[in-house]
Every structure is written in C-alpha cells, then in structure tokens.
C-alpha cells in the first residue's frame, strides 16, 4: 500500500466582505469533514490573501488546492483548474496569485506540488460577515464535488500512485 500524499487545502479571501470569504468557508467546512474521516495526511490553511511566504509554505506538500471566490462570468457555480507557474505580477502587488506563488517556489529551487485552484462564484462584496444565498449554494456544490473526488482519489492512491490531475480529468 502506498503512503498517502501530503495535501494542503488553502482558502483565501476576507470573510468580513461577504462572498469574498467563500474560499475560507470552503476550507473550514472541508476540514470538519476530513477530521471526521481521520485522514492525517491533509492540512488546512487560510489567509486574507496569498503572499510570497506561501511559496515556502506549499513546498512541503505533494498536492495543494487553493480555494478562492470568483466573479468570473464564465463560471456558473464553481470550477477547478490546474495552476501553472506564472511569472506575471498582479497589479495589486500586496497580494499575489497562485501561479505567481508556484513560480516563486520554482525560482527558489523548492519542490513544486501539483497545484489546483478551486474558484467558487460569489455575488456580494459588502462589509458583512454572511455569505450570500447564491454563493452558499455554489459552496455546497463545490464541497460535494471535492468530497467525492477526494474520497475516490485517496482509495485509488493507496493501491497505486495516481496523478490527481489525471484522476480529475477522468472524473469530470
């Protein structure tokens, strides 16, 4: 049996700005479920935004799944995509993108985890703590999807190394 891969779920956004916190809410809820499953190979982190120190934080994992809110018109509820190293700088450079983190990780000669970005559609961004009803529905869809995928992936992984990307492609 294979040793399970080290996985990190990392949600970012400001929960004080309504749907901007949906990535953080995802990480909190998936962590509760993982605790019940007693999977000790999975860690969780969250922050207002990603920053350069995350290049070091992610380098000790085999698989990293970032979770963020999105306003992307082409996404109706949620989407998950492979993140590739991206040297482009954001215009708001106090925060950086997952691709930038991966690129910095690479330039620092650190181990690169396979990295995905889970984007959950949000709608409201005011100074309130609560997530909008529509975003909550999207969050639940994303949770259901990831729980199913993760359960299947870890079972398969135990009996033969499976690439999460390949596995995800087969399932979607």
């Amino acid at each position, binding site marked *: 049996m294979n040793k399970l891969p080290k996985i990190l779920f990392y949600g970012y956004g*400001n929960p004080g700005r309504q749907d901007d916190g949906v990535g*953080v809410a995802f990480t909190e809820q998936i962590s509760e479920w993982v605790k019940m499953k007693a999977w000790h190979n999975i860690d969780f982190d969250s922050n207002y935004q990603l920053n*350069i120190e995350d290049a070091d934080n992610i380098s000790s994992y085999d698989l990293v799944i970032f979770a963020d809110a999105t306003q992307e018109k082409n996404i109706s509820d949620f989407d998950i995509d492979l993140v590739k190293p991206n040297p482009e700088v954001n215009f*708001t450079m106090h925060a950086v993108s997952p691709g930038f983190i991966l690129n910095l990780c690479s330039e620092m000669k650190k181990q690169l985890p396979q990295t995905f970005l889970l984007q959950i559609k949000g709608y409201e961004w005011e100074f309130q703590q609560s997530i909008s009803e529509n975003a909550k529905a999207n969050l639940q869809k994303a949770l259901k999807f990831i729980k199913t995928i993760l359960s299947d992936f870890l079972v398969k992984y135990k009996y033969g190394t499976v690439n999460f990307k390949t596995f995800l492609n087969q399932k979607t």
Partner: protein
Amino acid sequence: MGKKITIEPVTRVEGHGKVTIHLDDNNNFKRSRLHIVEFRGFEKFIQGRPYWEAPVTVQRLCGICPVSHHLAAAKAMDVIVGAGTGDGLTPTGEKMRRLMHFGQVFQSHVLHFFHLASPDLLFGIDGDPAIRNVIGIAKMHKELAVQAVMMRKYGQEIIKVTAGKKIHGTGAIPGGINRHLEIHNKISLINGPDPMNIDKMIEWSLGGLDFFKNYHKDHKDVIDNFAAYPSKHLSMVRKDGALDLYHGVLRAIDSEGNKILNDVDTQDYLKHIAEEVRSWSYMKFPYLKKYGPKDGWYRVGPLARLNTVDFIPSPLAQKEFEIFQAYTDGKPNNMSMHYHWARLIEILHCAEMMKELLNDPNLMKGELVTKGKKGNEGIGVLEAPRGTLFHHYKINKDDQITMANLIVSTTNNNIPMNLAVESAAKQFISGQEKIDEGMLNAVEVGIRAYDPCLSCATHAIGKLPLQVKLYDSNNNLLDIKTKD
C-alpha cells in the same frame, strides 16, 4: 495640442487608483493628480455595532494591514473601558500587543522593500518590466528572494502566536490581551532551526541595510534627487523622544527641523489635525490646523518617524540611525527615496525589539486585562507600517458605536504622494514626445516610496488591469495601453 495621460490603476498598490498627467501643447508638464476612485464608507458601517467587537470588525477594512487596525481599535477601546490612554495596561497586555505590532511592521516592511521596491533598484526604474519584480529578483539574486520570503514568514508567525490566527485575529481585546505567549512558541521563535530564528532575522536585517547603503553609494543621483521636496513630518514619539511604534505623543517638525507640534496628547488630535475634501478624489487631505489646508500637509511613515524622533531605543538600529542622521547633518531628510533607508532601519529595530520581548518573562505569565471606569469616547493612535493611524469612536449607553472616524496612514500621505507624482512627471515625462513604460514606472516609483495601501484608504476591494490612456487637450483618446 495638450495631452492627458492616465495610469489606471497604479500597479503594485492595493485598491483602485489612477494617475492623470496633463501636458501642454509642447508636451511640457502642466498638472498631475493621484485620484482615488472608490469609497465604501466603513465609518458608517460600524455604527450600531457593540464597541467590544471593533478590534475584530475593523479587520474587514483591509487584508494587508489588519493587525494595525486591530491594535488601533483595541487602543481606542482601552480608553472606553477605563484602561488608560495607552499606558494603563498590565505589563503582559502591553508587551504582547507590542510583540504583535513589531511582527506586523517587520513583515510589512520586508514585503515592501524586497518585493516591491528592490526590483526598481536592482533592475532600474526603466528596466525590463518582465523581470522588474520579485521573480526577477529570485532569478538573479536568489538569496534576497529567499530572505524576503522567510522574513515575511517569521513576521507572520509572530502575529499568529500573539493574535491567535491569520484571519480576524482576536488577541487584543478592550483593556488588554487574551493570551500569554506559549513556551513552545517562545523557544521556536528564539532558537528555531535555521533560518527561522530571531538571530537570523537580525542578521538579515543588517544585510538588507548593507544592500541599500552599497546601492546608495553608486546611485546617489536617483536615491537623493528622485521626488525630493521639503515638507513637514509627523509621527508619534515616546515621551522621552524615542522611536515608539505603539504609543506616545504626537510630534511634528517643519522642513528645517523646528518642532511645530510639540509632543501633544494623542487624545487631543482633533485640536491639531483636520481633513479637507476635494472634488477629484475620495481620499481626504489631512492637515495641521494652525497652518491651514494649503500649507498644513505633512508626511508620515518611516521617513517622517526618523525625522521626528530623537533616538531609537535598540542598539543596532540606533547605530544605523546615527549614520542616517549624519547624511543630512542632523537636518530633516526630505528625500522620498530615503523612505526605503528609514524602512530598513525600522526592520532592524523591530527584529531587535522582538528578540527583547521574546525573552521577557512578562509575556509568559501575569494579568492579561485592566479594568476601570467606563467612558463613552476613545481614541487609539498607532504608528502603522505606513505611518500614523488614528481610530476614534464614541458609544451610547447601550454600548453601541455611534461615531467612528479613521485617518489611515495612506490618507495622511495624500498630498506627499501627489507631490511625488508631480516631481517624477516633471523629471521623467515633461518635454518628452513619447511616453514609454519606464517613464510611467517612474511615476509609480514616486508613489511606491510611500508604500500606499489604497485598500485601507478607500476600503475598496477588487482588482483592475493597468490602463494607460493618452488624451489630447480636447479629451480625444489618442492612445491606450493595457496590461492584464
């Protein structure tokens, strides 16, 4: 035909801002403005909420410097719960907060210098934008990039062990703090494996200063002359004149070094400071009342702090401060690019002070909270990474906030940033027939020296691509450039 150039938004600052530069028919500088184009009214939002929530609620303002708002609000609430105006906390309460604040300033300054500013120095203001960023630093100066990442991480760890968590930290509460420093965290932060220990942070802080000073030797022209202009400077200082980022009295000096605000109580800030509104920006324009809106503007932040204080109460930073002061023969330093130098001296000071506090037994035991007679108004002032931060609240008999007034650091620097834009535009763009990326970046370098947080200043959220628009004098669009 006159031209108008718009840079929208400013890259590498948070929130929504744009710069317009007006040229006359001969392409000579006519006028420039830094506009803030979004505002969401946080002061209104917080009205009606219970006062004890404020230190957590204010972290909604900004994901960049939530700790500064957390502590400034907590200081204001100390006054409301009768715990004094900044010097009435228990030793544990005050020292834990100070440690949190040093961690915040340390990681914020590190990010700014190594991540945002050093690419302009290492690759040149007009360097290739494809590598003029931290990725370029990582490719060509890997050791600097590694230091930046690990120093940021260390500062974040300090925040985590004092504030409790990264998002909506709860460490500071009205009247004190809600935790002691745990022994395993203390040991790890003092003696952690290389490089995550305090001695390495001090060593790297000194290395950062050496890097700047060596660069300065060879590039005096740009560092000393870029966006340099005389100004007043304002900061909080300790009662004995020492640099104190957490508590003290308000002091301002003029461009010659004369004290024009002589160590006044922070609770009296409204007697001395007012804000003006101008039609073209949502960001207000603070000024010293006795000089009026036109002449009363001042700078805040690292440069202003080192200009106003008499000394720095940590030995290595004091030594560097003496070199800094000697460079201008003890006169105020009015060179915008010297913000970077001042910022690096403060990084060293923070590292030294974190070491002192981590070894302080008061953090491990003792009373956490002070209680006193409750009042209905509180003012909390802090020297945040970007400068003096004011939080002012009033509450009613039901403990609900009825009034909030925030003057954030970036707002204090509104006119200085506008002058930096003007200075850079005159130096780099005036008289040119064609505007290239390097010239536009020069304008941003002037703004960037202040490390503005427009998210704080406007409470905005979201990102936009960079758009550069060129108009003729009749506002016909001549050219547009967008960076995605």
